[in-house]
């Protein structure tokens, strides 16, 4: 699910950290009519504290939101937090050390799944190094490093203990539960560490490890045993989520160069792969609306740095409909379980860093717009 550690090379969610300059597609035409209010109302910024926050995922009752945020002194990397949407109380879920990303709440048990490197003995040193780098005034182009120390953990909602789920060399992250809480879909680069690589591959691993990322699923209670690999095309496959009926997986697939991405769905055994988008841009971070009828995702179709939210029917038969109209970053959309709200990550609050925004979602208007959309254009 990365959901947004997608950023490779210069690909970066502008909002979330990077400082890359605009090489966007020049938009010479008059700005399009703003239809954001058709779908989103009562828009507001949910997270305020700290430097950045993103990737908010709902509990099944819609009363909690788990998210990642950089907000504690001493650690310049994301940690995972759980927000009670009724009281406003916020508590940290992850250990506070090292890097974390991509949390998800188990729909059955309430356990919180996330990826973390806190077991890495160099974690504190890495934190200090990053802080020192920042203090030097330099700016880093956002780069997600696909740290091979990244492993999946789950924190028990009952005991509060954190259990390690995966234990394989390679980046294990971007994980989500199936609706019944029995399965975990995740992204892993483990295949690159399990076999011997030829010279070209070795070079590839050094420059762009995400090339080796594939989608896996495993039993949630199997302690990381026996994951089944679902994808095998060259290039980054990541950010898998289950469909609301638990029968399919939606994810985004990059091309080999890692610049273009599109939204796909497949069966849980990797069969019946269907492509939903064809923008010739970076389309990613898909999430299926709980009605099961359509997908909300992010794409930089309108400018390299300008990620906007789009939606497309579940079969990808129609041309996607633009949802957000805001310069900078809008991405990582996640509808609430009742389908009436949308949490997403946006830089619209100012600056480059993202924060989580919340809005009422007009499902009716979304359906109408999708109905009226023209057939999908082939590129």
């Amino acid at each position, binding site marked *: 699910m990365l959901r947004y550690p997608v950023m490779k090379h210069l690909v970066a969610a502008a909002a979330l950290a990077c400082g890359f300059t605009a090489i966007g597609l020049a938009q010479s035409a008059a700005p399009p009519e703003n239809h954001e209010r058709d779908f989103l109302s*009562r*828009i*507001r*910024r*949910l*997270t*305020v*504290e*700290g430097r950045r926050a993103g990737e908010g995922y709902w509990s*099944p*009752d*819609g*009363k909690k939101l788990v998210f990642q945020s950089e*907000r504690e002194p001493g650690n310049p990397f994301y940690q995972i937090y759980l*927000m*009670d*949407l*009724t*009281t*406003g*109380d*916020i508590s940290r879920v992850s250990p506070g050390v090292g890097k974390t990303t991509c949390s998800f709440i188990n*729909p*059955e048990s309430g356990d919180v799944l996330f990826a973390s490197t806190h077991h890495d003995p160099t974690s504190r040193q890495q934190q200090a190094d990053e802080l020192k780098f920042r203090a030097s005034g330099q700016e880093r182009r956002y780069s997600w490093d696909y740290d091979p120390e990244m492993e999946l953990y789950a924190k028990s909602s009952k005991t509060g203990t954190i259990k390690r789920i995966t234990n394989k060399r390679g980046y294990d992250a971007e994980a989500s539960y*199936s*609706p*019944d*809480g029995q399965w975990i879909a995740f992204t892993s680069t483990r295949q690159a560490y399990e076999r011997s690589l030829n010279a070209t591959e070795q070079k590839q691993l050094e420059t762009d490890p995400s090339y080796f990322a594939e989608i896996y699923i495993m039993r949630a209670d199997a302690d990381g045993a026996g994951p089944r690999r679902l994808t095998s095309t060259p290039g980054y496959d990541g950010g898998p989520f289950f469909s*609301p*009926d*638990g029968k399919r997986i939606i994810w985004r697939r990059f091309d080999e160069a890692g610049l273009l991405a599109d939204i796909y769905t497949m069966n849980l055994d990797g069969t019946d792969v269907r492509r939903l988008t064809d923008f010739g841009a970076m389309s990613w971070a898909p999430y299926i609306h*709980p*009605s*099961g*009828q359509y997908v909300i995702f992010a794409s930089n179709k309108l400018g390299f740095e300008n990620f906007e939210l789009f939606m497309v029917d579940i079969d990808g038969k129609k041309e996607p409909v633009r949802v957000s109209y805001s310069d900078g970053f809008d991405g990582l959309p996640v509808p609430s*379980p*009742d*389908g*009436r*709200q949308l949490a997403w990550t946006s830089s619209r609050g100012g600056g480059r860093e993202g924060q989580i925004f*919340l809005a009422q979602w007009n*499902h*009716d208007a979304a359906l109408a717009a999708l109905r009226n959309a023209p057939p999908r254009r082939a590129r």
Partner: protein
Amino acid sequence: MKTRVTTHRGSEALKINGVSLRVGKQRYLGASVPRCVVFVLLAVAPLWAQTTTSKTREHVQVLASDRFGGREAGTDGERQAGDYIAAQLARTGAKPLPGKGDMFLPFQFTAGARDGGSTFSVQFDPVNATGAIGGIPQNGQGNNNIRALSFSEDAEVTAGVVFAGYGIVVPDSQNFGYDSYATLDVKDKIVVVLRYFPEDADKDTKAILARYSDLRYKAMQARQHGAKAMLVITGPRSPNAGELVPMTFDTAIAGSGIPAASISGSMAAWLFQSAPKTLTDAQKDLDTGNPHTAGFAIPNTTVSMKTVVQRVTHTARNVVAYLPATAPTTNVQKPWIVVGAHYDHLGRGEGGNSLATKEDAGKPHVGADDNASGTATVIALADAVSKMPTRTRHVVFALWSAEEVGLVGSAEFTNQPPVPIEQLDAYINFDMVGRMQENKLTAQATGTSPSWPSILERANVAAGFDLTLQEDPYQPTDVASFNGVGVPSLSFTTGAHVDYHKPSDTADKIAYADLDRIADFATTIVRRLMESDPPQFAKVEQSQQGATRTGVRVFTGTVPDYASNAKGLLLGGVIGGGPAEQAGMQKGDVIVEIAGQTIANIYDYTYALELLKISEPVKVVYMRGTERRETTLTPSARK
């Protein structure tokens, strides 16, 4: 099955009879739910709109009624409004502060000025006056024909007279040569100047000269050229010809360091009897705007004048009460939380801050949004706090007066704090919170503590405002007084609008449902403050959001105290990291000279800023207590 849909406010549940797909426990309004039913229910008004009685409406309606006449500080209307507020606070169980007999904390402030009996007489040298126009002039007095300017010093002066044209000096920095004093020696003389600026000059010249034609500026120039006093004439060719200058009152009450008065047209003609030109001819020459048209000494003429300005002092009242903690606070750090709002407004708008249209001028400025809305919020907050079963800190409810004349009430509180400042946990202010649009609320001064983003984030999760944070505490509202003494502060506002400072800022235009939500939000913040360690104060560094003045591009990082009577520029504060702070200056210092310009008041200072150049160090002389100090200040660019 029943699908239970809970709003994020958490307390309202809509039960919808529909079929949803079973997906673990993930429930949603599935496709099989009849659309029409679902969306009719979705249209149900939000919870807060269902509140049967508003917490704030009645307070706003009472405070913004005509009977309080616009609640101008020091008036009967303000007193009645204060009585109402005190009664409301008493109703919640709030008590006077420890050691106080009641909730009223009176203070005096300067509300205006009037002439206190200025006099004027002219004596002509009988021997040498034979060349005078119209025969031998007569000595005489014209005490009804003089009026002191509101910023005049009180003094008696007798001296010879020099006519200095319009009395305008354009600073060299403007690259526009115009100096009424260029060829004149006015040292120890009484300078006579024309009001306004050359009438017939071309548009561009007028635009520049107009900028330096303010009487405060003319007085400063006269003083800096060594004159003993300044007399102003509204020239025969000018609008309001021959009239005395009205005694307007501005809130910066500091004197100009020189006696200054206007004299009537007849008195002016009399004064010019032995002059080389009549006043009309002299003005005609000047009105071309030609910079080479010089003034002249008026020979054989001595003026004796006395200026008396009576500054009118009124008494206003802060209304302050508190709800004590429910347990001893001996082990509580900083056991006092202060919430406040100003309740005064502009009266009938005669004080100069009114933006009323001509038709509405003189009507009561009832100030429903400014700031009956904030006052009502504080009363509603007192209601809510009084119902808390436990309070770990005392909560002070402070309604300030004389905010509109320069944050006087709150400054009075922080300068003579009835509770020690170091015991204050935080200050929360509300100023104009009644006109919410599109759910937008702004929190100002959030830079005063690193805790604010955290507290605001948590409180707003349930409140659900589209909340904007502004770090800058240098705001034209009472939060500035508390920031100035190092108390972590917040100020809420829903922003300015077309009725701002007009009689049309009325109670029927207030968004009461949203105002109630702000009161709830504030209650949550106060509760979170009670439950937390005291927020740490942070000094906000020089900000890009700082107040800007058109035409002033240099930045000195000084925060003038507008209400000061001090000779010089009293600093109400210095902006963290700004040039003044870097030069070693601090709150309470009084600047008396900058870049060679003597400074008697804020106006002198403002004009002096025109002379400063970005990155060019200048000498500053200032008083710290009785000690005269010098430093070098390097202005930066105003962002």
